[in-house]
């Protein structure tokens, strides 16, 4: 029996062995009878195992149904209104993978921040120098900084002194501290806007929707706490900041009509830049990284295939001992 099997293998190998660089799966003509015992084993799991599996599936199905039912019986405290209305997805010109900010919009947005938002909101983490070459020229930013007073070193008698702002200074906020900010805003604290775009779900879309989303009247039945305003995008709907943007509130130097939505768009773009000052460079480097890394990857795939070709197509021959 075995010797006939062996000779069958040998003749098969020799037949296939005439072409050297081919990768073939050798099929051995096994006598069917030898494996006749396997027919019984192929029946599979016993009926006991089947029962256990079926029972487990039934139990988990029932548990899931029960939990789903339980969940549907009670109303959640966090309703859609509590979460705030989801903002629409706007078509920002910097949305694309390789799209930079619109720098003209950043420049207008700074003007809106300065003339409107800066009355209540600080911008602690933005230094004057970072505006240079982004939205303003060097001398413009110097001039802007000089209009603010900063603490200087004390004089020889130890008396505190003041000096004009420099490029290296950070943009000063409207209030000395949080208590002063709350006192001026009926107890509500206007958050620092440096990172606000990153700090809110919906990012730009949320800020824009919030600024433009004040209806003239709150919907019927909505009861607002004193000193608050209705805005469906703000979680809970009652926000301490009233509507601040109205048509023609500012006058743009480039002649862009200062509609409410234009100002909201510009200030949001500006705040997005404040949150992500590295945005433009990041996208440019990303392009480079994608090209370089994917080329290196493809080269490494090629080199691997090249180096392995000889090994993968090698055929191992077995020459049985002659006796």
């Amino acid at each position, binding site marked *: 029996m075995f010797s006939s099997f062996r000779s069958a293998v040998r003749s098969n190998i020799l037949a296939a062995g005439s072409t050297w660089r081919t990768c073939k799966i050798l099929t051995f003509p096994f006598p069917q009878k030898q494996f006749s015992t396997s027919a019984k084993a192929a029946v599979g799991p016993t009926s006991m195992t089947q029962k256990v599996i079926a029972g487990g599936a039934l139990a988990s199905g029932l548990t899931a149904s029960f939990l789903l039912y339980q969940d549907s019986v009670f109303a959640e405290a966090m309703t859609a209104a509590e979460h705030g209305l989801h903002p629409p997805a706007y078509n920002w*010109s910097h949305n694309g993978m*390789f799209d930079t900010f619109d*720098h003209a919009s950043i420049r207008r947005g700074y003007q809106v921040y300065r003339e409107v938002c800066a009355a209540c909101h600080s911008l602690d983490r933005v230094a004057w120098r970072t505006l240079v070459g982004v939205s303003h*020229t060097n001398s*413009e930013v110097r001039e802007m900084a000089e209009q603010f007073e900063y603490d200087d070193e004390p004089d020889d008698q130890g008396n505190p002194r003041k000096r004009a702002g420099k490029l290296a200074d950070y943009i000063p906020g409207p209030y000395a501290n949080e208590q002063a900010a709350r006192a001026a805003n009926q107890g509500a604290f206007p958050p620092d806007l440096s990172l606000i775009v990153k700090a809110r779900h919906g990012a730009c879309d949320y800020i824009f929707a919030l600024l433009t989303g004040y209806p003239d009247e709150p919907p019927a039945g909505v009861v607002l706490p004193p000193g608050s305003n209705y805005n469906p995008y703000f979680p809970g709907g009652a926000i301490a900041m009233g509507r601040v943007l109205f048509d023609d509130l500012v006058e743009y130097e480039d002649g862009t009509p200062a509609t409410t939505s234009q100002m909201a768009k510009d200030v949001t773009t500006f705040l997005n830049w404040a949150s992500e000052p590295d945005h433009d460079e990041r996208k440019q480097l990303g392009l*480079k990284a994608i090209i370089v890394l994917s080329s290196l990857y493809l080269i490494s795939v090629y080199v691997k295939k090249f180096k392995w070709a000889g090994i993968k197509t090698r055929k191992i021959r077995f020459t049985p001992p002659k006796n």
Partner: protein
Amino acid sequence: MSKGRKIVLTLTPHQSFYTTLYNTVFKRNSTFVGTIFFAGFLFQPALDSALTAWFENHNKGKLWKDVKLTLNGAAEEDDE
């Protein structure tokens, strides 16, 4: 099959391109490494300026240098 492999570099009067390439670049480690270094130095700025050109063209009109052109007397400013 059992004869083993033998690499024969025939030198004909007209050397093929690959023979020239092999002899000038790959044959000696010094020239090979030198070529890699030199190619690296050339490749980096070439790729950089090509990608920057594409990127700035792709975002034309939105960049700071476009805004700067619209400002009076800002052209001579150094704002890097």
